[in-house]
């Protein structure tokens, strides 16, 4: 795989819906009400239901594994949640190669809301074959 520092990997656009948040809550087993109960979410100062941080992490995981395919292995994956995201708006996932050391490759990954704010930022470390 030909790689260079600064190289961007293909964008992944997700379109999360409230239905998806309910599906995710069930699949993960995270029933915190801020992800499906509008009244509850507002009562704790949120604009409404918000995406699970770990759902956004899953989106960024997909970004990396889609790009990597069977050409290597994901070794580490780190995400910080910097802002909230609400369903009904596209969530754009991006990544860029930041370091290459033999077969070890580091990527900066992030998810953007429609205003271009990076509400999730992270680092993925992969080992390419």
């Amino acid at each position, binding site marked *: 795989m030909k790689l260079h520092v600064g190289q961007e990997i293909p964008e992944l656009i997700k379109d999360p819906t409230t239905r998806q948040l309910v*599906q*995710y809550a069930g*699949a*993960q087993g995270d029933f915190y009400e801020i992800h499906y109960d509008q009244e509850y979410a507002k009562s704790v100062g949120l604009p409404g239901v918000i995406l699970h941080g*770990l*759902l956004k992490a899953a989106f960024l*995981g*997909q970004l990396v*594994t889609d790009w990597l395919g069977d050409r290597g292995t994901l070794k580490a994956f*780190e995400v910080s949640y910097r802002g909230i995201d609400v369903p009904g708006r596209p969530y754009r996932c991006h990544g860029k190669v930041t370091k290459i050391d033999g077969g070890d490759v580091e990527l900066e990954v992030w998810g953007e809301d429609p205003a271009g704010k990076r509400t999730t930022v992270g680092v993925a470390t992969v080992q390419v074959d």
Partner: protein
Amino acid sequence: MITTAEAIDRLKTRIGVDGPESTALVEAGHVRRFVEAIGDPNPRWTREAPPTFLVALAPVSLHLSDAEDFGKGWLNGGNRFEYLAPVLIGDEITAKGRVVDVYDKAGASGNMLFIIFETDYTNQRGERVARLRGTMIRR
């Protein structure tokens, strides 16, 4: 309502102490529902679990109820996954978690309480497959 200092005192006693182990089978149907929920149709996930699936196998954070007398809500601050071996469908994964740190920070809307925890995941052959580190914020 307690202060962050009181919450920290409660949680400090838990630092480094392993919580109870939990063991779960990586079931094909559970993985399928998980990948449907995240919207990732990669056929690889019919054999293997996707990167964040581990969080669906066991509760990722412990003792959080000890902190719920402070603040009104939780935020997830971040997660770090370290992968040591693949997690395959049919594997039996044991998770063991612990609190590793607790501290407070002044935020725009008052004090916030940070709880750092980690979970180790081991398969049926005793091989460690992953470690998860997470930050939960109470505000």
